[in-house]
């Protein structure tokens, strides 16, 4: 097992490959691995070992971040099941979802125009709620019903919302400056 050859992040942390994940256990195993592979543990070792530790620690961070964030975890699970979410070229969305998007965007623009941090905070909170509800349906689709193409549709919608979240965050940052 070299860092490059480790294809499955769930195997790395010895966790079952499901969307609903014991995050405490993930946290503990991640720390246990980092305690062994972090470059700080190789400061007095040979250059070869230093390089290996760096590669392993990088892999552990990548794997941990992928499994920790629900949307990335869903994408990763779908990839294991051979389903490409095609977020770059598949923009087909239900019309009502697109309408909602337009409304969100208009609200964001209004909040920016008003320079209102409170409005932005409110928007961010509502967005989180919306995303949580979509993540709930994702759990059912992936772990219970195993309807992967339908799950990929939800992932695409969540990606839209996540982008909106980043834009809200950017607006907050710029307003604070």
């Amino acid at each position, binding site marked *: 097992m070299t860092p490059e050859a480790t294809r499955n992040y769930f195997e790395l942390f010895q966790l079952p490959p499901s969307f609903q994940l014991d995050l405490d256990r993930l946290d503990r195993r991640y720390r246990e691995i980092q305690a062994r592979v972090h*470059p700080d543990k190789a400061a007095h070792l040979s250059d070869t070992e230093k390089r290996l530790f760096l590669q392993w*620690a990088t892999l552990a961070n*990548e794997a941990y971040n992928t499994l920790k964030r629900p949307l990335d975890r869903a994408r990763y699970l779908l990839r294991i099941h051979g389903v490409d979410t095609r977020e770059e070229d598949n923009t087909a969305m239900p019309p009502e979802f697109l309408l909602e998007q337009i409304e969100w965007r208009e609200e964001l623009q209004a909040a920016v125009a008003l320079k209102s941090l409170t409005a932005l905070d409110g928007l961010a909170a509502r967005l989180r709620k919306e995303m949580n509800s979509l993540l709930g349906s994702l759990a059912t689709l992936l772990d219970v019903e195993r309807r992967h193409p339908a799950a990929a549709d939800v992932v695409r919608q969540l990606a839209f919302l996540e982008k909106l979240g980043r834009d809200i965050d950017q607006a907050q940052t710029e307003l*604070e400056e």
Partner: protein
Amino acid sequence: MLLQISEPGIKPLKPRRIAVGIDLGTTHSLVATVDDQRPKVLEDGQGRVLLPSVVHYRADHTVDVGYEAIAWQNDDPENTFVSVKRYMGRGRDDLPETHNAPYRFADVPGMVQFETRAGTVSPVQISAEILKALRERAIRALGDDIAGAVITVPAYFDDAQRQATKDAAKLAGLEVFRLLNEPTAAAVAYGLDQAAEGVYAVYDLGGGTFDISILKLTRGVFEVLATNGDPALGGDDFDRAVYDWMLREAGISAPNAGDARRLLSAAREAKERLSEQDSAPIIAPLSDGAAVRCTLSRETFDTLTSDLVKRTITPVRKALRDAGLSIEDIKGVVLVGGATRMPCIRKAVADFFQQPPRVDLDPDKVVAIGAALQANALAGNRGDDDWLLLDVIPLSLGIETMGGLTEKIIPRNSTLPLARAQDFTTWKDGQTAMSIHVVQGERELVSECRSLARFELRGIPPMVAGAARVRVTFQVDADGLLSVSAAEQTSGVEAKIEVKPSYGLNDADITRMIEDSYKHARHDIEARRLREQKVEALRLIEATEAALAEDSELLSADELVVIHENMRILKETSDGNDWEAIKKAADALNEASTEFASRRMNHSIRKALAGQKLEELDA
């Protein structure tokens, strides 16, 4: 101060490798070490622990550092450098405040350089003088050469500033174990001293930089959740505010360099007094025989500096948001940096976090102590009971795309080390080279981010446009330093990369500076190389022997023979005086143990997780 880190009865088996922690500060610097399991800040011959970060260049090219340099500040300001940390990895355009500085700036692109009577010097060289003085102090105090150092940097330092700091250490002849973020160092010192657990904020206002880090402390793990800051905000700016007020009070518009220096010193003294008293009298003699006399009250001071205080709160808010936390989640706030002695800062922090800040540790020493503790652990003096530091990249990394826009490739506050691969293609038939411009910052426009470097990739096999797939890997190490590698995917050809740092020095510059410093003694360079290679060889032999003692059952008899043979050759060669032969033998041993190292890693990870599972069963 008593740090509870001693373990009675446990003695390291190997002779201790002396390692130091260095706080390379804007206004003053310190060096600390761990001696007999206890961290200790080292003093100069006169019992002083703070070394003023001031360097003076004499006509005969010798330098004064620290208090000796301060003595020249008033009479020779052009050749006496203070707060040089502000210039590290910075171009002239980044430094709007430099119009006040008494220095002669050289007309060069990239990082600022100064004309002195000893020639043109860069901030890296000036910082190296400070580091050399600290290194000498450590050698004198500890009676032996030092194996390596942990050097602290502001958490909000970007790649160019970090690289400049590492280069300065190299110039000073220090082996850098690690660059450590100042708030993280403080958290290590505080966390170990107070056995703290939970989420803490470290508010670090130094002489010239401001950092805020939010950390989660759990059972020997120090995990930075988010960091933010202002790389050009510190105690110096509070002095400047008082100085500007003094000029207005005295009706002076353009003081000469010497007067400006004296007035600034008087402003600093007044500021420091106001931490103890409600008002401070100021008397500053001028070169024309007159004097500035006034009294600064704490109320006036607070008014003059309220904007500066407010400027620290914005990054605090951002860091909390990035960490996904609110004020109620913060268990304690640790104050670091001499500037946090100001009552206005303590009040602002207490008001914001709705709790009094922790001031248990000396804010001047806590960073150096944390760095020393980490240096001791990295030197391998502790064994398996040490702690784990998980730090983050403070600013997003991006690449320039069409229309001068930034495409983020690594978001801020990602845990280090990390890597990100990105595929690029050629746009012309037969194209064999391409350039990637890497920037750091949060803005969408490249022009509003900091330019780090241009990476010129060469040696791409010629193909029709769009056929080549060049995978570029951006790797950021635990120090927060970026390196880039690239390979064409269809042919597997590794691209050659030339790095053009925007504000840094390239390897050739560093080599030249090191050689310049030994200009008149060619054999000194050779002697240094030999010494370095011998130390390296010894380290490698020790590491290999330790690895064999632990895990030799992971090797076949034949493999064991090969490693032993390479080790024997290295031992023999390193008794000689040919540094190139030693290096070759070391490379050979490294090569021979690559597979062994890899098996040991797998073994270690399996063991770790097996232990975890047992614990979970018990629980």
